[in-house]
């Protein structure tokens, strides 16, 4: 019996488990292989929707489904908190004492926000990286009557790189529609020397920031928040006053991969960029936010990585070489980018081809809305 264990029931974990079970259908039916997903809550959450709780009237209840309902019937689901991953004995231990042995292990353990690493973050800063926080931000926007809106990034890497720019554009449009734009200043703080990490996207976004009169502050790495003076301070020594503060919280990888010695301090798993093998561990694979690859931490990345991990795991189980175009990950990522006023664009790129975003239009905005609504029937089951 060859046991495949997938840790994490997000986009990557769910899709990869379904694809592996499809490839190992006969072996599973014959009792020669098994595929098990371990998820802490048993609920699959569509995180890209959080931004729309704050900005688009989305409801948190629409963004979750039972994980079981998204998995192939051949995939076993174990709900429990992972306490340890023991590479020496090839066993995953759960909090409640259960143990799961593996022959192939897939780490789809994602990333987590750590706002507590910046003092006063919880009290002062809004964000949209959980349903609760996005609801709070919505309430703050509803109560906003004008003033200084500061949007920044308090640590890299973070989930969904375009999101803070999208939020800046959407809030600007909302303030204009509510007649509050004249009474408001908008500031966007980027940790690097331009608006966005990828140069071509920066070249697209910077004129839009200028056109919308959103002041860009480059090399602004948020380090401190002063709740009394309502200012943020940067590592570079600058200070900026706010009335409404929206910060992307710092992110880390899963604590269990740090504690198990698989990832260094910040928790990103050292991963081979072509094979998605965890470096130094022939039978451990990683995908999605969990890796240290120089790519967007986004469901889209996991979506395009999953077929590669599935092919490599299936090949290992079947004792053959990985084959076909899905045996190598090319760094493919594709994501929509909201510009505001009902317009959007599309970022499509890989390791060697930077994106060339089309001129923003209504089609890509609608594309994002349709993709979000149909996600449950497409991505997790490998239909797109």
């Amino acid at each position, binding site marked *: 019996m060859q046991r495949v264990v997938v840790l994490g029931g997000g986009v990557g974990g769910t899709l990869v488990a379904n694809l592996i079970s499809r490839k190992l259908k006969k072996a599973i039916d014959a009792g020669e292989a098994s595929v098990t997903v371990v998820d802490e809550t048993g609920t699959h959450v569509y995180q890209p929707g959080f931004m729309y709780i704050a900005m688009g009237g989305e409801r948190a209840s629409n963004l979750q489904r039972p994980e079981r309902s998204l998995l192939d019937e051949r995939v076993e689901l174990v709900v429990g908190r992972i306490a340890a991953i023991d590479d020496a004995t090839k066993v995953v231990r759960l909090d409640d004492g259960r143990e799961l042995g593996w022959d192939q292990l897939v780490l789809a353990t994602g990333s987590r926000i750590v706002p507590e690493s910046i003092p006063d973050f919880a009290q002062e800063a809004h964000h949209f990286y959980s349903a609760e926080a996005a609801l709070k931000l919505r309430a703050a926007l509803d109560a906003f009557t004008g003033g200084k809106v500061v949007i920044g990034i308090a640590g890299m890497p973070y989930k969904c790189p375009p999101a803070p720019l999208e939020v800046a554009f959407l809030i600007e449009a909302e303030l204009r529609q509510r007649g509050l734009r004249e009474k408001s200043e908008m500031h966007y703080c980027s940790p*690097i020397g331009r608006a966005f*990490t990828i140069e071509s996207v920066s070249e697209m976004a910077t004129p839009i920031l200028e056109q919308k009169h959103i002041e860009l502050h480059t090399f602004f790495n948020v380090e401190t928040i002063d709740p009394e003076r309502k200012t943020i301070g940067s590592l*570079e*020594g600058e200070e900026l006053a706010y009335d409404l503060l929206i910060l992307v919280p710092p992110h880390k990888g899963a604590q269990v991969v740090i504690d198990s010695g698989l990832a260094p301090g910040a928790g990103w798993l050292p991963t081979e960029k072509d094979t998605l093998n965890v470096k130094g561990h022939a039978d451990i694979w990683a995908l999605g936010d969990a890796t240290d690859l*120089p790519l967007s931490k986004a469901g889209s990345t996991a979506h395009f990585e999953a077929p590669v991990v599935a092919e490599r795991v299936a090949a290992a189980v079947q004792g053959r070489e990985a084959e076909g175009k899905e045996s190598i990950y090319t760094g493919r990522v594709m994501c929509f980018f909201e510009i505001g006023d009902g317009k959007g664009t599309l970022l499509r790129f890989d390791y060697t081809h930077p994106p060339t975003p089309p001129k923003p239009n209504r089609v890509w905005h609608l594309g994002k809305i349709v993709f979000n609504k149909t996600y449950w029937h497409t991505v997790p089951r490998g239909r797109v």
Partner: protein
Amino acid sequence: MTAPSTGYQITRTIDARGSYCPGPLMELIRGIRESQVGDVLAVLSSDKGSKVDIPKWIEKAGHHLIALEARDGYDEIVVEKVR
């Protein structure tokens, strides 16, 4: 190209070769956060953008660029933490 100064001793080397922009800059920022004033950090980067972006950040952050040297397939950028 900044001429290398003499008389400095590197406190910490950050090998960011193989990492893409903004990885090397973010590694340096992490290193600066963890260092003491007076420490000298060397960043090794194979990303072509680093030799432009990192000196710009050093200037903005008020630190001292000691050297920027082209090595075999990568750049070595040496910075002193000033404040």
